[in-house]
């Protein structure tokens, strides 16, 4: 039940997209987002959609998985679409109603923009393991260390958080089982009662999260962890030919988008 939640989870694979250096993919996602926000007319939206679909095919990610990830965002998407539909000036669809043709066009484009935005970032997390992702991030942000930004610590925290999400979900399941076994009621009863029954789960969950953090710290120290200074990696990141090709394609794509924006298409 709880375990079925997908949180931008990684789908292992061996496609060209999986093999790209995480730094390349991170840069490309930033490029993608900038490009997406240059889209004005239908032709440029079409170009971004095409690029996105191409990447999905290359990385063997099924549309089903993307839809699953989009589900929690449905509300925000619907709200944005409605607001745009009613609050754009222009020719009214039905006289007397504040719904305009321009609004309709805007809201369809907004939906497309949000969906593409989410899809693009999902493509990153679906094809890159959390470890590779934080490694790449750390190296990209590396120069910031010069101005005393604790980049290593920040990325370490990030990778630990990602690592422990499934563990915490499992833990919640276990605590619920233990309470159910002694008659706690999460299924029958009034909504209020069920909500109240959920409360006693939080306390042990927090306690165990802190205990875990403590144990992890001890485990790291007993293996002589002492921060980022002078640490080497088991897997060194290296740019390969395909990374350069991907980056050049990304640059071309971005340039193309700027040109299209210039002509307003």
């Amino acid at each position, binding site marked *: 039940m709880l*375990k079925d939640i997908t949180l931008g989870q990684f789908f292992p694979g061996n496609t060209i997209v999986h093999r790209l250096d995480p730094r390349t993919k991170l840069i490309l996602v930033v490029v993608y987002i900038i490009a997406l926000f240059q889209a004005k007319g239908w032709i440029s939206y079409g170009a971004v959609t095409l690029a996105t679909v191409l990447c999905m095919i290359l990385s063997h990610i099924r549309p089903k998985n993307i839809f699953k990830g989009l589900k929690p965002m449905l509300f925000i998407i619907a709200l944005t679409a409605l607001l745009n539909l009613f609050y754009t000036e222009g020719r009214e669809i039905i006289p007397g109603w504040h719904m305009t043709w321009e609004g309709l066009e805007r809201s369809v484009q907004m939906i497309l923009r949000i969906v593409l935005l989410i899809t693009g970032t999902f493509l990153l997390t679906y094809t890159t393991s959390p470890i590779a992702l934080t490694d790449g991030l750390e190296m990209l942000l590396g120069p910031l260390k010069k101005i005393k930004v604790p980049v290593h610590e920040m990325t370490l925290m990030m990778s630990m958080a990602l690592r422990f999400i499934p563990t915490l979900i499992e833990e919640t399941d*276990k*605590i619920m*089982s*233990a*309470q*159910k*076994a*002694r*008659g*706690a*009621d999460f*299924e*029958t009863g009034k909504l209020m009662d069920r909500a109240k029954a959920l409360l*006693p*789960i939080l*306390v*042990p969950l927090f*306690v*165990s999260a802190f*205990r875990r953090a403590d144990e992890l710290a001890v485990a790291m120290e007993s293996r002589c962890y002492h921060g980022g200074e002078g640490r080497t990696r088991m897997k060194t990141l290296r740019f390969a030919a395909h990374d350069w090709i991907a980056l050049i394609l990304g640059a071309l794509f971005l340039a193309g988008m700027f040109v299209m924006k210039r002509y307003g298409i």
Partner: protein
Amino acid sequence: MAEIKVEGLRHVYSAGTPFEKVAIEDVSLTIPQGQLVGVIGHTGSGKSTFIQHLNALLQPTEGKVFVGGQDINASKYTRRDVKWQVGLVFQYPEYQLFEETVYRDIAFGPRNMKLSDEEIDQRVREAAKFAQVDEELFERSPLELSGGQKRRIAIAGVIALRPGVLILDEPTAGLDPAGCRQILDNICSYHRESGSTVIIVSHNMDDTARIAERIIAFDHGRVAMDGTPEQVFSEPEKLIAMGLDVPRATSLAMALKKAGIELEGSIYTHGQLLNAVLRAKEARVC
């Protein structure tokens, strides 16, 4: 009364994903009211999965479970009510404790039963005595106790429900030998005095042989053997092939047989071994 009946039980974990795992398959059996059953089987053979079906914590992928003639998975109400009848002590006690103090943890079940405060207090003290939880520990947090103490509290928390069916998943793992014996003796006397059904999962063949009336052996998710200790331990080769052990008395008798000293009768407890050796000795003297 609470007879347990299991029909065609099958359970698949993570069905429909690449991590799919058939944990138990084709399990059908009946446990009459008041029986003391030992469940044995190698690691990962499906024992814990099986017993979690008996109080509807897990729902079968296929098959049915009846307690006292009622299909316990018929509705969410039957799924909840069966928890009062069937008390389950988990394999890992640290997963079972969640309250702020030991007292509140043991009282969790009775409080859910909506008993009066006096009744709850009485049950907590009684259950604590049963599981040998020191009353001095009552105000401590269960999470900062030792493994053995946690296990006792976990047992007490379930005993406080006074279940008609008591299921314990490796109740003595992590206890010292004296504590082990004491807990098992208490379980046996609970069984005798209340007439409850008791199901114990254990890796300790000596204990199982000593107290169980019936032994069910799991092997790769299926019931491989089911019978009295006498029947089950009369086939030591089969048990050993399943990655299990025989009681020490049985293996000693087997060793004696190899050395040319044939003992009579089936032997699986120390008492039986002693008697058989004495009989054999008399026979030699004559």
